[in-house]
């Protein structure tokens, strides 16, 4: 689908998590998301950025303004070459009940987004993608 704007950020330090939030916010404003929707996707970006840092050993995020069928949206893709997640389904469930650790970030990010997808391979890395549409 066509992308009208792409920005990339490296996630290596905890300061980068703030930068990811700020970038997501400014592009969310550009897409024209409502305040609540902006808050949701910026919060989701913070969770996933932190996961990338804490569990993925660092990585990068690609933030894109996308268009499909006349609708505008914001897509974020978090990439790391970390250890990967053994059981993705479990990771999505875990956090919801325990409220701790990586799980809350993944499950939470999923609940806060219109679209969510995750690819992870043990020993190779993880790729998480979320999107919110206007």
């Amino acid at each position, binding site marked *: 689908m066509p992308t009208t704007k792409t920005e990339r950020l490296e996630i290596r330090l905890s300061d980068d998590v703030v930068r990811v939030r700020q970038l997501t916010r400014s592009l969310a404003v550009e897409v024209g998301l409502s305040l609540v929707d902006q808050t949701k996707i*910026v919060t989701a970006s*913070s969770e996933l950025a932190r996961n990338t840092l804490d569990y993925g050993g660092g990585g990068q995020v690609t933030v894109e303004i996308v268009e499909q069928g006349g609708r505008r949206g914001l897509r974020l893709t978090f990439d790391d070459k970390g250890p990967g997640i053994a059981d993705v389904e479990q990771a999505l469930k875990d956090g919801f009940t325990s409220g701790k650790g990586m799980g*809350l970030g993944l499950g*939470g990010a999923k609940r*806060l987004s219109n679209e969510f997808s995750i690819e992870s391979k043990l020993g190779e890395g993880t790729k998480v993608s979320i999107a919110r549409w206007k």
Partner: protein
Amino acid sequence: MDRIPILKFGNALLVTIQVDMHDRLATALEEDLTAKIVAHNARGVLIDISALEIVDSFIGRMLDNIAAVSRILDADTVVVGMRPAVAITLVELGLSLTGVKTALNVERGMAMIQSRLSESEADDADDKD
């Protein structure tokens, strides 16, 4: 590194968070507050988050921790001024912050702390009778 200022307000401590905190700053705040609660024998901690546009799970856990620590040190923590968009997002995220008391603004938060203190003092007085 900048640290978030903590003000003394009678027998309570007041913290106003106005910046988008990075993790180190949040951790430093936790430590500073704990130290100051003991140093000033504070009975209440008021955290004003009315300027925060985002509260994620890290900040949420920080607030939970501060509330838990202060409880052990015999102080009440009240978080005030949460924005509607933040509240809606936190609920969706699944963070219930059950250990944290909340109030609409600083005034109400202070009133809450003071009334709980006078309640507990009255209880103590009753016990002594």
